[in-house]
């Protein structure tokens, strides 16, 4: 493994890592609560995952195996750059397989493969405050969290139903963590919200621009907001994945020519690929038994 010289392990200095770890410990102790931390400059702009990278840099060890995804894909610019960054500065092993990874940094998705108790999922968060759209004042939103005044959040859902006849919010869908704090799950599709509930893996959230860290400890209850008569629902598709045939994963709509033809494919590239491999293997196995 190549390690860049002149940098500390995983880029950040040890004092900064300790500070971030203290924030993480506090966040884990108070599920869903946003802990302020002294965000450091990272060698890429805010909005490119600096929050998630600082969390990753603080928890990563030499024995870890890192996976980075962006919109479910391992091969997009952001994912490739961050993966390479840690391969260079920490010299850790990287992987594209969800099951093989011990740390997964993600933007916009939770992998389809269920996560295990020894894994950590790290989210990149642009706006950590779910109440921001109703209340621009930070002093006021903090007070609302402290006093559990979350009625106003329901206004957003009311507007959806009034305008579209159903809850049309499809990503960044607010959740209650451990029946106490309202949390912004980062811009994951609401399709992924149920996966957060009682997940065996530790979930850490880092917002670099707003300098906040929050967490959902393993096996914590995470409930999506809804109305009694309009319960929470996830997206569904009429099509299956055009590549692996999956009928239960989150699909991306891809335009494939100038005539407007389109196909639906899994957004989780690793999941799609492993399903294809399994399909080919079982097909080969069947052929072998037949011959």
């Amino acid at each position, binding site marked *: 493994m190549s390690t860049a010289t002149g940098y500390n392990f995983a880029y950040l200095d040890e004092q900064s890592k300790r500070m971030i770890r203290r924030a993480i410990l506090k966040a884990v102790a108070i599920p869903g609560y946003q802990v302020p931390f002294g965000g450091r400059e990272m060698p890429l702009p805010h909005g490119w995952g600096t929050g998630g990278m600082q969390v990753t840099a603080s928890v990563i060890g030499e024995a870890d195996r890192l996976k980075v995804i962006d919109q479910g894909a391992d091969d997009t610019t952001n994912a490739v750059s961050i993966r390479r960054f840690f391969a260079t500065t920490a010299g850790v092993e990287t992987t594209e397989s969800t099951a093989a990874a011990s740390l997964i940094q993600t933007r916009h998705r939770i992998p389809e493969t269920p996560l295990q108790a020894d894994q950590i999922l790290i989210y990149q968060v642009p706006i950590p405050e779910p109440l921001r759209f109703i209340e621009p004042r930070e002093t006021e939103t903090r007070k609302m969290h402290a006093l559990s005044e979350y009625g106003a959040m329901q206004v957003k859902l*009311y507007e959806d*139903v009034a305008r579209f006849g159903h809850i049309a919010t499809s990503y960044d869908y607010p959740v209650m963590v451990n029946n106490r704090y309202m949390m912004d799950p980062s811009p994951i599709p609401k399709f992924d919200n149920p996966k957060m509930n009682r997940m065996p893996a530790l979930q850490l959230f880092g917002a670099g621009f707003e300098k906040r860290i929050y967490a959902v400890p393993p096996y914590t209850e995470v409930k999506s907001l809804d109305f009694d*008569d309009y319960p929470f629902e996830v997206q569904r598709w009429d099509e299956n994945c055009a590549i692996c045939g999956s009928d239960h994963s989150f699909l991306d709509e891809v335009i494939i020519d100038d005539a407007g033809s389109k196909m639906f494919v899994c957004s989780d590239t690793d999941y799609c690929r492993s399903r294809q491999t399994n399909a080919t293997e079982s097909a080969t196995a069947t052929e072998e038994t037949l011959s």
Partner: protein
Amino acid sequence: MNNRVMSDASIMNTSAWQDLAPLLSVRDVNKYYAPGKGCGPVNFDLYPGEVMGIVGESGSGKSTLLSCLSARQTPDSGQIIYNSEQFGEMDLYAGDESERRVLMRSEWGIVHQHARDGLRMNVSAGANIGERLMAVGQRHYGDIRAKAEEWLEAVEIDANRIDDRPSQFSGGMQQRLQIARNLVTHPRLIFMDEPTGGLDVSVQARLLDLLRNLVSQLGLSVIIVTHDLAVARLLAHRLMVMRRGEVVESGLTDQVLDDPQHPYTQLLVSSILQN
């Protein structure tokens, strides 16, 4: 100064309210931003079902007093004792802030002078009315919407405007929407700051008529700040006249307006155009 000034005793003697416990007791409340800027000391009792008017010129401390009373600004000194349904008799600023905030969205209503201070302009009228219901824990969309329609009609707004935003409403309608938004949780005490300010006279008249009906139907207690003596005469049972932060005269509305004792009140009453 005359014998009516600051004497609560004489007011209580004139009514049957003395049998009831006061809803709000204000004792020596002071709030000064700088010498001469603010209000106090103020003393009065407000009884259930009573409408109290506070009149005075701009800068006389009316609005400061109102924000102290409605738990939005901590006074420098003095006590405000509120007789709450949920918490019993409570000293407003001695207690927990969470209790004050619960009061503000359940037992109290605050009608602002500018409707856009009291409304959420970027969400529909229905959501504006429903917000307080959701804040006190209602989670059934159908029920919330039915209540919102009911209240829109109660304040004479067509129920099919429920999905329109307040920015598409006229000034008078915005003000009525603000009132509906406050009344939906059946508060006991309403604070109003110049509710008719900026409205033309015919719209003012309709709003006042509506307010008067609602107050008597629902048995609301109201503290209304206004510089318009006509509004005060129409709505208020009792008046307090303020000048430079101090209460210069108080008493029954008709008494104060028809037989003003303090020179400032005399000036105020004589400044109205007579027809």
